[in-house]
């Protein structure tokens, strides 16, 4: 599987072995290495910082508790990422998440990016956040994390075709939002971006 977007860290096998033995320092080190990946993934998929923090906690509690079930088929980072993705999808299926709108994007820009590059990233972040949940999740998992349509379909308990059509819809909407075209019936999609920029 391709490694893109939220960079999956390479984890030393000895560190995993120590963590399996219950070494707290090893747990802490694994967290240091994998937490940015998990948090970024959750923020992009769910947009809410509070929910992303929930995912971060739930993921690592599960990682620590179930680390002895890790069989080493894929890299440890990929195993952690899969747990995080499943947690995100579970949150999206829950009743609570549909009511959560506490999105804030002020802290999404890397401090090292400045000027136009930063502005472009903010616009893209906002456009991504404006997508319907399902479309956003699919475009992120496919275009950034590198999951195939088949894998996405399985994770979401849907078909491969569903994933393909959601990806197409996501890009169609992104094009509208990013270009500033604002058809009357989709005004609500475009307004936040146009108002700010």
């Amino acid at each position, binding site marked *: 599987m391709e490694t893109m*977007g939220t960079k999956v860290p390479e984890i030393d096998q000895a560190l995993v072995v120590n963590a399996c033995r219950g070494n707290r320092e090893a*747990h802490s080190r694994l967290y240091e290495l994998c937490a*940015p990946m998990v948090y970024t993934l959750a923020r992009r998929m769910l947009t809410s910082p509070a929910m992303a*923090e*929930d995912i971060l906690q739930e993921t690592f*509690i599960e990682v620590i508790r179930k680390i002895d079930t890790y069989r080493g088929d894929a890299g440890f980072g990929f195993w952690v990422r899969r747990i995080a993705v499943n947690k995100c999808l579970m949150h999206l299926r829950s009743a*609570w998440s549909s009511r959560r709108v*506490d999105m804030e994007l002020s*802290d999404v820009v890397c401090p090292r990016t400045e000027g136009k590059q930063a502005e472009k990233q903010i616009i893209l972040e906002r456009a991504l956040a404006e997508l319907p949940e399902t479309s956003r999740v699919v475009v992120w998992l496919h275009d950034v994390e590198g999951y195939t349509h088949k894998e996405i379909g399985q994770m979401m308990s849907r078909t491969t075709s569903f994933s393909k059509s959601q990806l197409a819809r996501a*890009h169609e909407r992104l094009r509208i939002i990013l270009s500033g075209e604002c058809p009357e019936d989709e005004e609500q999609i475009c307004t936040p971006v146009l108002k700010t920029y």
Partner: protein
Amino acid sequence: MPRGRRTDMYPSTEDLLKIRDSKPVDARAFAAVNADPELWAEIKRLAEVKDALQALPMLKPPSEAWVKIAAASESHPVPSSHWLLRGAIAATAALAAILLVMSSSEGPQTPLPSTTVAEVIGPGESGWNIARGLATPTYTSLVAESARLERQLNEIGYKPRLIRAGTATTITGLEDQISLIDAQLMYSRVNGLQPGQAEELQRTRVDLMNALLKVHHAHAQRFGF
């Protein structure tokens, strides 16, 4: 999606994405794309969006998250603060609704003394300082204490068979205040609060959690659940 229909087979966005990702695509769709520079431009744009998404920066997790995880993983499963509070508020709302129905059906009762938030916390009292005897706990220790209290609260559970309306109001009030603190803490990263202010919020949260525990303990002793 590109506008204008130039051939009999006009490719869909799905077709364009397949070409972008070098995946097999219907031959007629590919021929249509080959014949139309605008469609190639659209594929290029789709590829640029993908590149831009991949280039978005990694985000730094909240600094106090590991403390909570470490505390929770040492014992039994603990729901994170937001879920616990959601659960608490939902449970309280459900209890309030049950009480409303019960009170309307049972008629007048002997009034019990009510408990207020102010009584539980006490004027100017810092539950944390009194309970722990620490003059200036650090932010990290406050976060850990919050997690510990949440664990205790979780152990008690929300299973009372009967609860006075006054107590229910107190619980709801405390939980609302804790939710407010959580919201403030969440936005503090954006609003750029001073470390002292964030610490003060955490201290208040610990006090409120202590108060909430007291109410639940008192109720548990009175009614033995």
